[in-house]
């Protein structure tokens, strides 16, 4: 195959695109700023680095990115504009993302726990958006994350990515990019691609690095060094940096579990825990002061040697099995006849998945301004929390799957929708008035407004109409 290998020069015209300047010698190719199409956003061109005697790697990465990026959308990936003919001039033209590359922030490590959580949650949101589209990044590392000025994370470089709807051109390769070795998941080392939880592991490595300034498995120089992560226990982050909280350690070590089934099953769950540290159920991981002992690690080493290679579930099915479900509970009217029906509906919904995360929210109207100031006249925040806990108790949800929130807001539906959006909720369960109730009851209800504006599915629960009472139209 004859492909031009020389670098592009400023002023050169490639198809429709005018090359301005080379900006970044990326892992999989050289990046240039270009102009040439009226897209309304700035553009870059990525040209695979092809040198005589090179492996097929860079071209495969190019082909993979040119195949997968056009199928992705949303604020967490650069928009795809064009790809060159692979035989003549391989390139991709993409949206130029304004922001800071996370790699450039590493000098500031260790970062405070809140900042690690904020950046981590933004990356987890981006991963979840990707996973929902059926794709896995497979090469998450600081160099491949751009933080927009708004705080949102954008994932770049899909040269090693995997997508359920496309043949995996890299299945045979088992390769990873230069600089990726510290971040790669154990199962990827064994040749398993297409498991979204591999990205969760890599994000765990990034969080560890941001929180401590160190890499949990160092920079492996050999295959043996790489394979250490199949069994080795990294130093607990609290040992390396005093700023790491037990919650952050719990979250990071859960991401880094060599067993995929022990990690977060969805990046949305991870984002949630990073945003709600007070709701994280702490285990012995949180308080570890040293890595597991020699004997335990030797046992794990042996297990890793003989264990069968785990086959990933399809990304879609894995995410369907790990939904974030939010139930709206009205603790202001806890005797409402709809409450048992909402509990029943919640129980039914939870039975459909193995790895759900349940968020119970009660929205309490803000006390009117200039109120009487009498304490105790209306239930306090804590009272509502007690009612919420009491409401949940019969469902028997294990604490690590459950979180409870009392939100004070003047507009309940707006607060519910905002909370659902921020936490990647897949389904909202809430009660609604009966059709036979006063005219306009539905139109004034929280249920109607949430149903109209929710970013996800809504399960509207009603108490059945008594048979003898004709419904009003």
């Amino acid at each position: 195959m004859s492909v031009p290998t020389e670098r592009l020069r400023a002023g050169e015209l490639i198809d429709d695109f005018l090359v301005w300047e080379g900006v970044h010698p990326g892992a999989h190719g050289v990046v240039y700023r270009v102009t040439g199409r009226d897209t309304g956003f700035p553009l870059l061109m990525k040209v695979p680095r092809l040198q005589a005697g090179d492996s097929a790697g860079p071209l495969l990465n190019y082909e993979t990115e040119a195949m997968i990026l056009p199928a992705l959308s949303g604020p967490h990936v650069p928009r795809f504009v064009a790809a060159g003919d692979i035989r003549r001039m391989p390139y991709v033209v993409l949206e130029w993302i304004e922001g800071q590359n996370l790699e450039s922030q590493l000098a500031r490590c260790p970062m405070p726990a809140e900042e690690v959580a904020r950046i981590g949650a933004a990356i987890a949101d981006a991963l979840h958006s990707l996973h929902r589209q059926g794709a896995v990044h497979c090469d998450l590392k600081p160099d491949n994350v751009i933080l927009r000025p708004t705080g949102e994370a954008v994932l770049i470089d899909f040269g090693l990515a995997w997508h359920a709807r496309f043949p995996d051109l890299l299945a045979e390769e088992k390769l990873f990019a230069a600089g990726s070795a510290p971040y790669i998941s154990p199962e990827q080392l064994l040749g398993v691609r297409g498991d979204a939880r591999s990205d969760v592991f890599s994000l765990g490595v990034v969080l560890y690095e941001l929180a401590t300034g160190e890499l949990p498995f160092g920079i492996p120089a050999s295959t043996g060094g790489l394979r250490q992560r199949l069994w080795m226990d990294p130093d607990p982050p609290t040992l390396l940096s005093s700023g790491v909280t037990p919650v952050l350690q719990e979250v990071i070590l859960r991401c880094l579990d060599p067993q995929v089934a022990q990690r977060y099953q969805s990046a949305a769950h991870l984002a949630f825990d990073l945003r709600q540290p007070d709701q994280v159920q702490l285990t012995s991981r949180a308080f570890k002061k040293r890595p597991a002992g020699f004997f335990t690690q030797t046992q794990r080493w042996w297990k890793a040697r003989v264990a069968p290679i785990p086959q990933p579930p399809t990304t879609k099915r894995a995410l369907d099995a790990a939904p974030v479900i939010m139930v709206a509970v009205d603790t202001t009217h806890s005797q409402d006849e709809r409450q048992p029906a909402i509990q029943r509906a919640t129980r039914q919904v939870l039975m459909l998945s193995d790895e759900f995360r349940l968020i119970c929210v009660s929205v309490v109207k803000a006390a009117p301004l200039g109120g009487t100031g009498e304490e105790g006249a209306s239930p306090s925040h804590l009272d509502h929390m007690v009612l919420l806990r009491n409401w949940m108790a019969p469902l028997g949800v294990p604490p690590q799957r459950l979180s409870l929130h009392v939100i004070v807001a003047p507009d309940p539906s707006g607060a519910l929708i905002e909370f659902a959006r921020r936490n990647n909720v897949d389904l909202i369960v809430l009660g609604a008035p009966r059709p036979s109730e006063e005219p306009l009851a539905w139109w004034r209800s929280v249920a109607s407004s949430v149903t109209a504006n929710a970013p996800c599915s809504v399960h509207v629960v009603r108490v059945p109409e008594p048979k003898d009472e004709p419904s009003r139209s």
Partner: protein
Amino acid sequence: MLLLALLSDLHANLEALDACLKHARESGATRYAFLGDLVGYGADPALVVEIVRRHVAEGALAVQGNHDAWVAKYAGAIAESVQQSIRWTRDALSADAKAWLGSLPLCLREEAFCFVHASAAAPERWEYVDDPRLAKKSADAAGLPWTFSGHVHRQMLFFEASPGKMWSFDPVPGSAVPVRRSRRWVAIVGSVGQPRERNPAAAYALFDLEREKLTFHRVPYDHLAAARKIRAAGLPDLLPWSSP
């Protein structure tokens, strides 16, 4: 736009063929290729052959499948139920139609494409290309970027991941897959008339020659009507959606 419709294993199922042709037409198909087994099992061999012949007269491609060969010539050692359907089909077809089936080529090569019912490695041996090793044999024999086949009654896509090494991929219906000329591909397009994937919807594929993209499709149709006709004709009750 050049859009090639790839239809295989029609198996005398008129309802399924109509549904796929309609779907292809509405999708903008500009050319048709029939990958064999036009007849056998189903209750409408005469009409199905007539429709395919009409398309061929207008420039479509057609290759012979094992059932077509068995009906036109000699049926070897095959299961009694299949023998029964072959005998019934012979009676249902005119001598002219049988002669036409018998005259179909086993394999056609055109530009960068190879069309063959089973494997291009030995078309007359009716080998099932259902794993990467057999797909590689077929692709090597074809010696061209794209080999389109049927016979397996299941949609599959094989691709050359690295030189000399084939991999398989389960295509997602309705999703366009880039299949670039720079590597070799063997696409098994599934069966129009008798899919065996526990889903009665008819299967076929569309290949976009300009964009080099292949889309596998599943087209629902009134399969119960086709089944009723098969039973009414006294044909063996080998419903694809009830067979394992």
